[in-house]
């Protein structure tokens, strides 16, 4: 068995963070946070956890590392939060480095272990609070910290300037009009039925997804709009950094930009973590029990369009596909049946992964882990051998992946394990198959 000390990964953010720390400072922050921001939930979890170890097999890290016990969910909680509580925060800066590495890079907060714990312990919540403490101690991996800074400075994840955002949309609109002469990407249309929101990486380097979404909206005759002002980005890495203050700011900006346009509902692109932020974490921080503006995920939106007969395809996708169930929309929001309805509508043959639906293995990129950047890429690759096995066993080449994080993570795994597969968004497939005007 290994320990976290055996696998320390050098990271500028973590190194610089602990350089300024003393045990006294750590104690102060830990105790303040525990007293001020945690309550009965954490206390009951720590006490009621029977240390039975059943959660171990729920974790892809544990399974991928030949059942190395140091990767089991309960071990991660024991090595971090439980230790901080027991020692009342009296730990060394080096120990905080180790805890940060566990919490930020060796847990995807995917909550798969919840299906394994008889008591009902939410390890992802515990890891989130460890991240919160590390954030308050200023010990955060550099890449994801930079992303969170981008959110707090620009209200989007990718340092995209306000005019660049509008430029990107108009560029896509212009390009798309070659193919669909009537197509528009209506900006700031008050009272529209649909407010389409995306995550920062879409205008930055997956701009074709905006093109495709516009094509689908256009073909389906949707009364839609995209905002020209900050708030358009629904993503939220502050949530994963533990910077809850900025998580609240960006979620408020998102909701309010939709309210300002008096739209009927927000439809979000194929992203998982952004969805978690609007129904689970960001809304709670703001004190919204429900979402103040109805928000639906792309899967639900496409499902609706298919039910209404608004998506017309020329033929079905011929090659067999498999389906990746992203944690935040499946285990997080129960869209497994709608996802299957959509994929079966579009594709001739679906080969399911085992296990699947709410028991599917995580992509190992989510929870902000891929956002911790290149230093931790190997953590993700070695930590998800089970996903590679699961993918390989389907025997197909195409994977439908309705989530940006899953996409990035799985493409990496495909390369690392030489699987020769390829990931596709639902939007990719609809766009490929849809009826297009003859020019």
């Amino acid at each position, binding site marked *: *068995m290994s320990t976290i000390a055996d696998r320390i990964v050098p990271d500028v953010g973590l190194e610089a963070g602990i350089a300024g720390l003393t045990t006294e400072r750590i104690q102060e922050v830990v105790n303040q946070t525990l007293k001020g*921001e*945690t*309550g*009965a*939930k954490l*206390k*009951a*979890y720590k*006490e*009621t956890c*029977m*240390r*039975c*170890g*059943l*959660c*171990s*097999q*729920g974790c892809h890290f*544990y399974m991928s590392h030949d*059942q190395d*016990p*140091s990767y*089991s969910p*309960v*071990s991660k909680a*024991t090595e971090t939060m439980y230790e901080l509580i027991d020692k009342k925060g009296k730990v060394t800066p080096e120990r905080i480095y180790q805890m940060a590495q566990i919490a930020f890079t060796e847990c995807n907060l995917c909550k798969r272990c*919840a*299906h*394994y*714990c*008889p*008591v*009902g*312990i*939410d390890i992802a919540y515990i890891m989130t609070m460890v991240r919160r403490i590390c954030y308050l101690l200023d010990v955060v991996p550099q890449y994801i910290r930079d992303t969170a800074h981008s959110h707090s400075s620009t209200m989007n994840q990718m340092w995209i300037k306000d005019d660049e955002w509008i430029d990107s949309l108009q560029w896509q609109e212009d390009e798309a009009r070659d193919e669909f002469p009537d197509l528009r990407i209506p900006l700031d249309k008050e009272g529209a039925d649909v407010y389409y929101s995306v995550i920062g990486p879409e205008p930055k380097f997956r701009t074709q997804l905006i093109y495709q979404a516009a094509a689908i909206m256009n073909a389906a005759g949707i009364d839609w709009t995209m905002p020209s002002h900050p708030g358009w980005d629904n993503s939220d890495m502050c949530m994963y950094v533990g910077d809850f203050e900025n998580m609240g700011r960006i979620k408020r900006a998102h909701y309010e930009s939709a309210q300002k346009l008096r739209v009927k509902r927000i439809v979000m692109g194929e992203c998982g973590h952004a969805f978690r932020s609007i*129904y*689970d974490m960001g809304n*709670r*921080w703001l*004190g919204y*029990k429900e979402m103040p503006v109805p928000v639906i995920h792309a899967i639900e939106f496409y499902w609706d369009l298919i039910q209404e007969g608004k998506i017309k395809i020329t033929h079905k996708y011929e090659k067999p596909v498999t389906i990746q169930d992203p944690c935040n929309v*499946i*285990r*997080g*929001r*129960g*869209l*497994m049946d709608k996802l299957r309805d959509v994929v079966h509508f579009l594709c001739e043959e679906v080969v399911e992964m085992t296990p699947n639906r*709410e*028991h599917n293995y995580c992509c190992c990129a989510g929870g902000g882990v891929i956002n911790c950047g290149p230093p931790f890429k190997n953590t993700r690759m070695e930590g998800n051998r089970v996903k590679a096995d699961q993918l390989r066993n389907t025997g197909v080449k195409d994977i439908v992946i309705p989530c940006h994080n899953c996409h990035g993570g799985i493409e990496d795994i495909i390369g690392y394990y030489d699987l020769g597969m390829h990931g596709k968004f639902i939007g990719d497939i609809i766009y490929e198959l849809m009826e297009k005007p003859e020019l």
Partner: protein
Amino acid sequence: MTDIYTFVTGPLAWVAFGIFIIGSVYRLVSMYALAKAKDGSSLAYMSWFYGLRSILAWMVPFKSKGWQSDPLATVTTFVFHIAFLLVAVFLNAHVVLWDTAFGISIPSLPTYLGDIISILAIVCCAIFAYRRLTLPHVKGITRNQDWFALILVVLPFITGVLAYHQVGSVLVMTTLHVIFAELLIALIPFTRLSHALFILFTRAYMGSEFGGVRHANDW
């Protein structure tokens, strides 16, 4: 010796039950107060329907992923808890106590069956200990508190079985049995055994989040 026996089965029993009841009420009330003060964004989602659904789902052996993943732990957990409750309430010697102390008359287990079930409970504890000693993913997270709780639970069973089989002095063994049982009862609210108090709530909360917010099963 008889005086000691009278003392442990009389006043000391009241003390043990008193500590158990007052301690349990205190722990539950203070935990609820803390939840109200600090966990509003969690309490708001508590749901009777989904909470109970989750509790019931996890009471079915091998239904959940967790129960499926480790058959030995699953069988041991179920057998142990059922055995514990059966012996604590329905063992014939205990049924006599219910009657003499409180005038409550309930059916009792046949003597031989009570003996078998008690031995089964000890075997289960041995399996729990085996897991803690040998399985790496359990060994690494086991602390003194976990051992303390296990020993606390097994002692009344061991002394009870020895007393029944008249190993050593019956009076001494029975007295020890009563003392250990009282210690167990009194310490439930203050040790790892407090899961007996809190598990319904942690389970119900996870069930509420999964059912009500996440629209997925939590098993």
